[in-house]
């Protein structure tokens, strides 16, 4: 590992100034992704600015009904937070489905959002990878691509985004609060992560030095009935092959509101707007659920090893919607 200088940030302004002026500097949260990448040689920062002691470690209910989650709140604390368990169960479930108890105690909200793909070629510095080394090629295209994308991929990169939490946040239309050298801005979480296009090395729209300070959840009363379901190769402690985050409202047997997002299918958490349109106003039946999945998957393109994701997505969405709408009816 390359030697690096370590600094513990005591205030956000100087942390932002330090990282902004040094292209080799990086923020570090829990370190559970960054330290791994430093060991693997995927990332070689010359300076780390530790942000875990900045005052962003609380979850606040705001007067306007929004909930603000500080960027350094640990994944385990967020999942245990009463307001999240009551009002946004899909978010608690998504967090609890990720990694392990001892990793969630370290992992932060900001770091979870900005974790990088688990594509094995990205993590193996001996293989070509456009995301790690722009222009070197994509080893997954013709290689092992079971975990890779079926939506929104490009010829340059077919990686998927690994975060479970981010999928729930996408369904909830959360906002990401960002502070940079030029001030603050708010980025909708659905616009934070990019599709790979010609620049797979850019995971997100953030610029170097921008610090995530918080995530805000809008009030969404029908999210009290919501679900995150994750399908994977083993029952626990594995990344998603496919995951579904969903919240629905049913009235007189018809779906009046629906929020759907998919994980494991794309370079970003995939907000399923076509599926939502297909559900809106339709009867809560198996046919409707399947049609919604088909609407979203119409543009899907599969690779050698990941065709199974299409029926898996369809079945998982139908199962989640069945569960949520039956609950409502009973």
């Amino acid at each position, binding site marked *: 590992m390359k030697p690096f200088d370590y600094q513990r940030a005591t205030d956000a302004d100087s942390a932002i100034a330090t990282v902004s002026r040094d292209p080799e500097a990086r923020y570090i949260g829990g370190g559970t992704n960054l330290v791994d990448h430093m060991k693997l040689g995927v990332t070689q920062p010359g300076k780390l600015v530790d942000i875990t002691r900045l005052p962003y470690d609380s979850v606040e209910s705001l007067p306007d009904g929004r909930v603000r989650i500080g960027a350094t709140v640990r994944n385990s604390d967020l999942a245990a937070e009463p307001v999240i368990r009551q009002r946004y169960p899909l978010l608690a479930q998504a967090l609890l*489905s990720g*990694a392990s*108890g001892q990793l969630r105690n370290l992992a932060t909200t900001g770091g979870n959002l900005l974790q990088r793909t688990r594509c094995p070629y990205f993590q193996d510095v001996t293989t070509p990878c456009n995301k790690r080394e722009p222009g070197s090629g994509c080893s997954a295209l013709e290689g092992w691509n079971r975990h890779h994308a079926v939506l929104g991929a490009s010829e340059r990169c077919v990686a998927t985004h690994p975060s479970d939490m981010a999928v729930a946040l996408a369904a909830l239309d959360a906002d990401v609060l960002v502070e940079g050298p030029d001030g603050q801005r708010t980025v909708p979480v659905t616009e934070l992560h990019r599709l790979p296009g010609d620049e797979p090395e850019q995971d997100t729209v953030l610029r170097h030095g921008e610090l995530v300070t918080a995530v805000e959840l809008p009030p969404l009363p029908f999210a009290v009935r919501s679900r995150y379901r994750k399908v994977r190769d083993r029952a626990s*402690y594995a990344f998603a092959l496919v995951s579904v985050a969903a919240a629905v409202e049913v009235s007189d047997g018809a779906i009046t509101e629906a929020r759907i997002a998919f994980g494991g299918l794309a370079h970003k958490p995939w907000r399923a707007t076509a599926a939502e349109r297909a559900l809106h106003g339709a009867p809560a039946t198996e046919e409707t659920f399947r049609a919604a999945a088909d609407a979203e998957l119409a543009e899907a393109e599969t690779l050698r090893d990941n065709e199974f994701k299409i029926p898996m997505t369809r079945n998982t969405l139908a199962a989640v919607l069945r569960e949520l709408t039956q609950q409502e009816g009973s």
Partner: protein
Amino acid sequence: MDSEITLRVDGRRETLSVDTRTTLLDALRERLGVTSPKKGCDHGQCGACTVLLDGRRATSCLTFAVANEHSEVVTAEGLAEKDEPHPVQQALLDNDGFQCGYCTPGQVCSAVGMLDEVKSGWPSYVTDDLEEPVELDEDEIRERMSGNLCRCGAYANIVTAIREAAE
């Protein structure tokens, strides 16, 4: 680049100078001679390096020692009171909860941390009702302990031991 840090490890105050690249796991094992946390994978994937960090279970291989200045670290070694094993350790002994023992210190710290999480009412991915108190049945234990792999496959007895320790 070296940096001086102070930690409390198993009740002792330790001040040492570490290269910033040293993980907490390597500082414990290589610098302080505390070898109960084990290095299985060094990438967060096996749980063998689990310690209690300020009272919470954490993988020590994915955090730099410098990031843990002033932290309180308790390893499986420090959980025992003199010659009296901790109840979780005793339950593993009583139930043959290990074979080679390599994963065991991590299992012990993880179980101790996990039982505290249950006491605090934390749900897990298999908890049906997120607002009801948790009932620690076998599914709950398996889910909550999934971050600790055991190459010898002693899982069945580990689960039994943890159930016993929880009572």
